[in-house]
């Protein structure tokens, strides 16, 4: 789950990381008021969950509160990469001397947290990594030991930070690790961390991602979820505990198991079709879940056929078959349905579906071929 800049920076601040004075606004009027309170120049920053806001014109400098209102009006009406801007952050403007990149994230390969830092901050770090990898330093942290001050000093030295800033930098580094750990973040990023003209370290921009699997112990963070970047069908699927991702094709898929669900998409493509979605109904799929899944798939008008691929293990095919029947009764789908049941209680499942007017298949390849044919006819 991604957090907005204003949410991330509020969390940073709680852990002792200095951030600019400012607040978030949902209307231009509010933005004006915040600018008045702050006095002087302010930055109006669109709050959307995509990168490249600046380039898209979503970050603007205002010299006073009137201009802040104008710019906020402009920005609040924008769409950035398909996402509507619903909020702007109004921050006091900072006089910047140097921009640093500083982040803590998961290192899958090392199986440890990793600090990523660079003296070349303020720009897209992936670009820096591609063009000038020598400008980026990476240091792993032992998760059983956590961040230590000496590690922070090592980082400061490695990015040639002048010694007068080491003490402040150490505080930021210790704080950011606490943020990362206490919120179960998979990314806690400050870009840029700036040295201001009056020689202070300030986290000008912030980005955080939270591990979805850890949200059970962070109900406060779970409430911050912004579903704007998710398709409505994905939001609906989440309510039922279904793992669903919308795609651009016309063959709906309902599969048990994530690996097999991905594979079913791949095999559809292999035989010349295009999957309309990824959907893992999970183990022991109940008829309620199956019905919800079918409804969600059929909300997409481009779907011309649905493939059910169930490999029964723990999941029993007869139970899924009952779910399909109940769902058909409720949803009354008009597109052809191709079903393949293998494994636990498959025969019983097939018998139940005998009169349901479905196309049956023995193998995955066969099921995919039949789905592609059915979808072509449905056009």
């Amino acid at each position, binding site marked *: 789950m991604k957090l907005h800049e204003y949410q991330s920076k509020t969390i940073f601040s709680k852990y002792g990381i200095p951030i600019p004075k400012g607040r978030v606004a949902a209307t231009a009027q509010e933005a004006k008021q915040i600018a008045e309170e702050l006095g002087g120049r302010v930055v109006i920053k669109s709050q959307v969950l995509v990168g490249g806001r600046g380039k898209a014109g979503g970050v603007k400098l205002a010299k006073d509160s009137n201009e802040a209102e104008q710019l906020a009006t402009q920005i609040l009406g924008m769409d950035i990469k398909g996402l509507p801007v619903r909020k702007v952050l109004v921050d006091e403007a900072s006089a910047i001397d140097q921009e640093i990149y500083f982040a803590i994230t998961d290192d*899958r390969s090392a199986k440890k947290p990793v600090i990523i830092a660079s003296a070349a901050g303020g720009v897209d770090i992936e670009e820096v990594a591609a063009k000038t990898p020598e400008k980026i330093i990476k240091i792993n942290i032992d998760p059983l030991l956590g961040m230590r001050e000496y590690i922070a000093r090592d980082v400061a030295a490695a990015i040639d930070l002048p010694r007068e800033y080491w003490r402040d930098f150490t505080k930021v580094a210790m704080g950011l690790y606490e943020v990362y750990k206490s919120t179960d973040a998979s990314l806690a990023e400050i870009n840029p961390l700036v040295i201001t003209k009056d020689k202070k370290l300030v986290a000008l921009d912030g980005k955080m991602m939270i591990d*979805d699997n850890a949200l059970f112990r962070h109900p406060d963070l779970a409430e911050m979820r912004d579903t704007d970047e998710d398709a409505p069908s994905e939001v609906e699927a989440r309510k039922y505990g279904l793992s669903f991702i919308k795609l651009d094709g016309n063959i709906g898929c309902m599969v048990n198991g994530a*690996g097999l669900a991905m594979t079913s998409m791949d095999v*559809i493509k*292999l035989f010349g079709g295009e999957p309309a979605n990824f959907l893992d109904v999970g183990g022991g799929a109940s008829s309620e879940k199956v019905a919800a899944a079918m409804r969600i798939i059929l909300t997409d008008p481009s779907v011309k056929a649905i493939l059910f691929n169930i490999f029964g293990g723990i999941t029993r095919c007869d139970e899924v078959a009952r779910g399909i029947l109940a769902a058909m009764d409720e949803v009354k789908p008009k597109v052809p349905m191709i079903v393949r049941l293998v494994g636990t209680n498959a025969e019983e499942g097939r018998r139940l579906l005998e009169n349901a007017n479905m196309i049956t298949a023995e193998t995955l390849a066969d099921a995919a071929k039949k789905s592609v044919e059915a979808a072509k006819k449905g056009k």
Partner: protein
Amino acid sequence: MSILVDKNTRLIVQGITGNEGLFHTTQMVAYGTNVVGGVTPGKGGEWVLDGKLPVFDSVKMAKDATDTNATIIFVPARFAPDAMFEAADAGIPLIICITEGVPVQDMMRVRNYLDQKKVRLVGPNCPGLLTPGEAKVGIIPGDIAIPGNVGVVSRSGTLTYEVLYAMKNLGMGASTCVGIGGDPINGTNFLDVLEMFEHDPKTEKVILIGEIGGNEEEKAAAYISAKMTKPVASFIAGQTAPPGKRMGHAGAIIEGGAGTAADKVKALEAAGVKVAKHPEEIPTLLM
């Protein structure tokens, strides 16, 4: 011979009195796995499976009372890290964790701690292990695989069943099937299992089932090309997966353009691995 589990495995089940734990214990015992007991804190002294299996309050107590040498974990995600630490502290050398949804940072701490203790972990978020005809330690349906000489290692669950079933239909059996799980941070990885298969006299060929995300398939390819003498066939799931989306498994995500199926297929093919276009084709590549 086989790897990790066989008829000499003496298994305990953590979370044995829970719904899933009890169901799968029944299945494992029916398959012939030597289950010697289980653990549920607060239920020590009880018995399950018609009085056949004792329940203990802690892993340490189970270890002292039985001669267990492996444990399987079926507890909910919020308790799973503790269960793994407890098993490691009790000195159990092999831990299999089936639980799905363990937070990543918990797994980092678990993995680093277990490495210090030299304890082997398989999983989490995995279907476990199956050595056909000897031991089923996990949730892989026993009847879809027959004994044989092909080692199978996979990041997936039902996709693995699909492959085992296709093998069985061709009369091809498995030495051991290892589900390493779909999480970004896990215990045993492809490389560990390939090394074990390479040294296992009963395994003559290997099937590796990978998916998008991370770079474990690439590391496996490097090992295959440098060290492996046995033929390997493979399949990579997620060729049509869009970047930046988690495809069900926490670890199945293309991040910053890395971890794509195309990259993995390329690395494996360069190492001399035959890569199948669909899962039912994999066994035919080894015939």
